[in-house]
C-alpha cells in the first residue's frame, strides 16, 4: 500500500494547496491555544474548518484536527469543545496528547478516531500499546528521538499504525516534555501551543551582523551573508566550557526523504510533514515532492532527488535521530 503523506495546513489557502498538490491527508487546528501551532494569523475558525474538511473529502483527502496542547486546569471545557467541534466538522480523526483529554474523547466521542500526538512522546512499544488499549488510539505519531531500527522494533510489537516526521522543523528534545520556552518567555508548547514565540523575538542588525534574541537572551548571531535561522531555543548558539556552538542542535531541519524506503520496511504507515506555520508555497512544493517519492516507491521507480534545501531552516538538512549517530 502506498505510504500516506500527511501534510500541514495553517490557513485554508494552504489547505487547498496541499489537497491540490496531492496530499492524502491534511492536519490542521483551530485558531486558539488548543493546538501546538498557535501562531498569529494562523489556523481555522469553525466555519473554515467545516468548509475545508468538505473540500478535502470532495477530493478524496482526509483531515486530522490537532488538539495537541495540554488543557489548562480549570479550562478543560475549551479543549473538550474543540474535540466536539472537530467531530461535528467531519474530521476523520483528532490528534491528541493529553491523557485526560484522550480519556474524555474516548468516553464522550467514541466514534471519533483518535491519534496520539508526537507531543505525548510515546517512545516505545509498551507505551504505544498502552495508549491503544487504554484510549483506543489507532495511530501514534512517533517522537523524533528514535532511530529507524527502533521504529521497526516498535512496529514489530504493535498493531497500532505509526506515523513519523520526514520533513521540516526538528525538535531535539522529547516533544511535549520541554519547558525551555516558558522558562525564557513564559509561553510554552504544552500550555500555549507556541515554542520560542515571535512575540518575544527581537532582531538587531549591527552593520550586517544579525543578532537574534529570545526573551532578551542573545542566542544567535549571523555574520553578514550567513543564513539567519529563527531563534528557537534548542537551536541557539551557546557557550559551555571552552566551546561556543550550537550545543543542542544546529539550525537545521529534518529531511528524511531518502530514508522513505527504509521507513516503509520498518512498517511505518504515514509520513508527516512539519510546517503549519509555513506558506502555501512551501506546502505545495514539499507535498508534491513527497507524493512523487512515495508514488515512485510504490511503482518501483528510483526516488527523485530532493530540491528542498532552500525551504529549510538555516538552509541545511539532517536525517536527525533516524540515524543513530545523531545522538
Amino acid at each position: 500500500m502506498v505510504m500516506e503523506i500527511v501534510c500541514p495546513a495553517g490557513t485554508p489557502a494552504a489547505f487547498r494547496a496541499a489537497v491540490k498538490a496531492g496530499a492524502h491527508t491534511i492536519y490542521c487546528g483551530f485558531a486558539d491555544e488548543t493546538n501546538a501551532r498557535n501562531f498569529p494569523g494562523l489556523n481555522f475558525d469553525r466555519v473554515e474548518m467545516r468548509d475545508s474538511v468538505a473540500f478535502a473529502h470532495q477530493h478524496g483527502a482526509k483531515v486530522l484536527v490537532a488538539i495537541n496542547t495540554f488543557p489548562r486546569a480549570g479550562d478543560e471545557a475549551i479543549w473538550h469543545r474543540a474535540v466536539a467541534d472537530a467531530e461535528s466538522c467531519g474530521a476523520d480523526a483528532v490528534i491528541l496528547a493529553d491523557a485526560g483529554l484522550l480519556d474524555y474523547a474516548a468516553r464522550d466521542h467514541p466514534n471519533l478516531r483518535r491519534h496520539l500526538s508526537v507531543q505525548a512522546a510515546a517512545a516505545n512499544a509498551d507505551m504505544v500499546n498502552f495508549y491503544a488499549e487504554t484510549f483506543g488510539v489507532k495511530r501514534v505519531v512517533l517522537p523524533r528521538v528514535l532511530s529507524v531500527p527502533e521504529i521497526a522494533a516498535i512496529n514489530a510489537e504493535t498493531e497500532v499504525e505509526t506515523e513519523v516526521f520526514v520533513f521540516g522543523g526538528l525538535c531535539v528534545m522529547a516533544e511535549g516534555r520541554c519547558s525551555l520556552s516558558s522558562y525564557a518567555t513564559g509561553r510554552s508548547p504544552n500550555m500555549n501551543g507556541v515554542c520560542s514565540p515571535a512575540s518575544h523575538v527581537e532582531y538587531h542588525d549591527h552593520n550586517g551582523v544579525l543578532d537574534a534574541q529570545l526573551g532578551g537572551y542573545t542566542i544567535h548571531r549571523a555574520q553578514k551573508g550567513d543564513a539567519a535561522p529563527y531563534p528557537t531555543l534548542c537551536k541557539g548558539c551557546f557557550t559551555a566550557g571552552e566551546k561556543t556552538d550550537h550545543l543542542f542542535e544546529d539550525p537545521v531541519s529534518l529531511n528524511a526523504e531518502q530514508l522513505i524506503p527504509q521507513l516503509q520496511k520498518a512498517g511505518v504507515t504515514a509520513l508527516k510533514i512539519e510546517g503549519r506555520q509555513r506558506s502555501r508555497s512551501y506546502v505545495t512544493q514539499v507535498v508534491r515532492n513527497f507524493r512523487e517519492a512515495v508514488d515512485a516507491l510504490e511503482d518501483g521507480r528510483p526516488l527523485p532527488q530532493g530540491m528542498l534545501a532552500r525551504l529549510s531552516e538555516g538552509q541545511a538538512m539532517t536525517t536527525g535521530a533516524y540515524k543513530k549517530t545523531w545522538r
Partner: protein
Amino acid sequence: MSQTTVSVPRCPPLLAVPLRAVPLALLSASLTAFSRRIATSHPGLFRRLGDYANTPFVIDPTDLPLVILLHPGNGKPTITLTRRPVGGAARIAGPLAALLGLVHGGFDGDALFFSRDLVIEGDTSASLALRNAIDDAELDLSEELLNLTGPLAAPVHRVLSLLERRTGLYLTRPEEPAW
C-alpha cells in the same frame, strides 16, 4: 547536510529611477484606494490579522527609493509612501521582487527570511500575522488592478505581463510557486 541558494531578482533601475520623481502624495492616495478595494474583496485578511489589525507596518522595498507605511486600520487601510525613514511597530524589508513574491505566494516567507532576502525588525509577531494573513488571502494584485481599470484592462494587462517577463517580478499569482 546540504545547501542551496536561489537568487531573488532585483528591481531594474529602469523601473526604480522614475520613482524618484513621481509625486508621492498622489501615488499614496491611489494605493490607499487600491488597498481599500482589496480590503472589501478580502475581509478575511483583516480578520486574520487579529490583534494586529490596527498595527502600523513599514514595508521597505530595499531596491526602490521609497518606503511604504501600511496602516491596516481595522479593515480601512491607508497607504503612505515616503522617501524618508519612518517608524512603525514592525518593519519588513527586502527587494521588491521578494515582497511581491510573498504577496502572490510565489515565495515562502520563512525561506526568504532564512536566506536573509527578507529582514524583519520590531514586532516579529505582527510581521508573522501579516505574512500569514496575506498568504491565506491568495491575492493577485494585477487582477485587482485590472478590475480597477475597467476599459483599460487589456492594455494594462499587456504592460504587466511584459514587465513580469522582463523583470522576473511576481506581478500576478503564479500557477506554480518558485520552489
